[in-house]
């Protein structure tokens, strides 16, 4: 019996309202959410290669990258849900997580750029509900409003650019399509919070709960990077931009500024969550540089960085949440939660892109292609990596500054165990990178074919 590709998507989409109805009974809602996510993972894993199905008149197709992205992002989502259930119960989180899971699958499987973009926009708005908490004590509402404004602005101008690009006759002056690509790029930059469009991310980092940040920076931002390259490939805009080097310079410039700016901000980060968010901004800048090189290794590296960054950011944000809760308003110290501290430090290895974790080959490819494009760009990315290393070391030393009275793990070491699971997966990917990089390479071939059609 063949299972339709729409089944896991429908399972998560219909599960979300069901879980919403029972959300206040956490002991029911949380296991239901986890079961739905695990079932969706199993269905996606079991689906045949290049399976496709039609939902109304929209085509859903399972590409190798779609499968890899779906499995990785749903697994990260399941880890976050388990952490919320066992360590930091927040009943609104579970239906949101299922909604985000459905959006992840829809974005990765849809083949119509406008539909993909519309679903992406819905997905980026879903976590707003989990950003706000204890609204009388903090500025989480202001942070959520700012996020709403940035995503709405980026989302609608991007949708408008795509609709215009599809409806204008092909005999347009080339500058028209170039302008549309630039608008589309700015739209994605707004949604990804890359510098200089990062102010809402900075406020979110300070005010939103760590698990909501993990949902956004661990699942939704990697999905947005993949959606960006998929939409560029499907929208037939690429041949217009490849002929103008100034546009490529602009794309690489924004990516490079974000890579180095995010790393600079990370070195001055005053708390754990801000450090993680700044590292993510830097890594996303690097991923955009990879895509902007319009080369096979650059695209492979860019997408690999986005996925690995999502996993490592989740690991660090969950650990940061635990460390902050156990610090009771004081500075976070490893003595209160040794395993969570270890998970935080190990997550830093992934965000820096150091070997042997799977983040390394992606970063290596992007830096290699950046050097091939321009020496200053390659040097900027290396400087960004060194700055990230300094920022992570500084915070790690601060965590362990008072030493460890005992190596005995803390009670309920949920974040520590979640971090160990994620790190093990990243390590396995680093030991056998082929399984991780091959599906991305298959997509890179499609991207290059769309860039220079015969």
């Amino acid at each position, binding site marked *: 019996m063949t299972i339709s590709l729409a089944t896991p998507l429908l399972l998560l989409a219909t599960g979300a309202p069901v879980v919403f109805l029972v959300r206040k009974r956490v002991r029911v809602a949380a296991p239901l959410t986890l079961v739905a996510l695990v079932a969706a993972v199993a269905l996606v894993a079991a689906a045949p290669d290049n399976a496709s199905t039609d939902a109304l*008149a929209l085509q859903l197709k399972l590409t190798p990258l779609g499968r890899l992205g779906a499995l990785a992002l749903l697994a990260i989502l399941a880890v976050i849900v388990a952490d919320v259930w066992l360590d930091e119960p927040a009943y609104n989180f579970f239906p949101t997580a299922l909604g985000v899971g459905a959006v992840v699958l829809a974005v990765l499987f849809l083949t119509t750029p406008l539909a993909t973009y519309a679903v992406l926009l819905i997905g980026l708005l879903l976590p707003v509900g989990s950003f*706000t908490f204890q609204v009388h004590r903090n500025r989480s509402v202001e942070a959520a409003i700012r996020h709403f404004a940035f995503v709405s602005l980026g989302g609608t101008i991007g949708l408008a650019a795509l609709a215009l690009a599809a409806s204008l006759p092909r005999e347009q002056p080339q500058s028209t399509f170039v302008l549309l690509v630039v608008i589309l790029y700015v739209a994605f930059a707004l949604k990804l919070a890359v510098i200089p469009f990062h102010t809402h991310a900075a406020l979110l980092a300070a005010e939103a709960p760590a698990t909501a940040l993990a949902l956004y920076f661990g699942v939704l931002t990697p999905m947005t990077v993949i959606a960006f390259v998929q939409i560029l490939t499907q929208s037939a805009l690429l041949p217009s931009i490849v002929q103008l080097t100034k546009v490529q310079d602009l794309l690489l410039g924004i990516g490079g500024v974000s890579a180095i700016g995010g790393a600079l901000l990370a070195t001055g980060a005053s708390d754990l969550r801000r450090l993680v968010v700044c590292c993510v901004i830097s890594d996303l800048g690097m991923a955009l540089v990879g895509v902007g090189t319009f080369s096979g290794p650059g695209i492979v590296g860019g997408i690999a960085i986005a996925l690995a960054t999502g996993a490592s950011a989740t690991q660090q944000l969950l650990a940061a949440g635990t460390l902050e809760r156990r610090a009771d308003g004081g500075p976070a110290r490893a003595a209160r939660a040794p395993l969570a501290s270890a998970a935080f430090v190990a997550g830093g290895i992934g965000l820096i892109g150091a070997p042997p974790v799977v983040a390394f080959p992606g970063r290596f490819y992007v830096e290699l292609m950046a050097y091939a494009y321009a020496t200053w760009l390659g040097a900027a990315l290396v400087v960004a990596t060194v700055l990230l290393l300094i920022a992570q070391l500084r915070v790690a030393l601060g965590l362990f500054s008072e030493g460890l009275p005992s190596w005995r793990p803390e009670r309920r070491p949920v974040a520590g165990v979640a971090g160990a699971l994620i790190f093990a997966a990243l390590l396995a990917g680093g030991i056998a990178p082929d399984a991780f990089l091959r599906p991305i390479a298959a997509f890179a071939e499609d991207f290059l074919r769309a860039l220079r059609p015969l």
Partner: protein
Amino acid sequence: MVLLAAVALTTLVANGATRLRPTAVAFFGVSIAANVIASSATTMAQVAVLGVAGLAAAGILFVAARDSHYGEDPGWRLWVATLIAAIATPAAFASFRTVTTEVPDLAPFTSENASAVVQVAAFWLLSSGTAILVTARGAVRTSLGALLMLTGVQLLMRYAPGPQLELTIAVAWVEVVVALTGAFLIVNERAVRE
């Protein structure tokens, strides 16, 4: 021209309203005017979807207000948003319309060039929405800006090739989600203020 004026006027009313409930009603007016302008390129099924989405979005904002006094005074932002829209609309139309450089025929009541009218209305809504969003201080005007922009996007999508009804449904869902998110934030913002 009359329909374009209707879109412009309802946008100005929504932009200038100091209370959320009149803003929501004016937004529904914008939605109706936009759908009438694009009626020649819209099937009945699309009209139904768009009508329900516009009504739902306006209704959600109307209910989120909870009473007739809550809102956000635009102040000088009204004039900035209007000025930006007035400058950006012709610039966008000149940059993105069809290759022909001929001046489109815009008769008072009927138009030979429906796509040009739809594009002008779309660019007006997109630039107004952008200006409102960029200058917004709270959730009320942020929601209005986003909804106006989405109405503009719906107009532009009428001429995009592809499964029109499905794309209309997708963007209609975005409209409803934006309104729900905006309403959630409006309620929370009010709780913080009070």
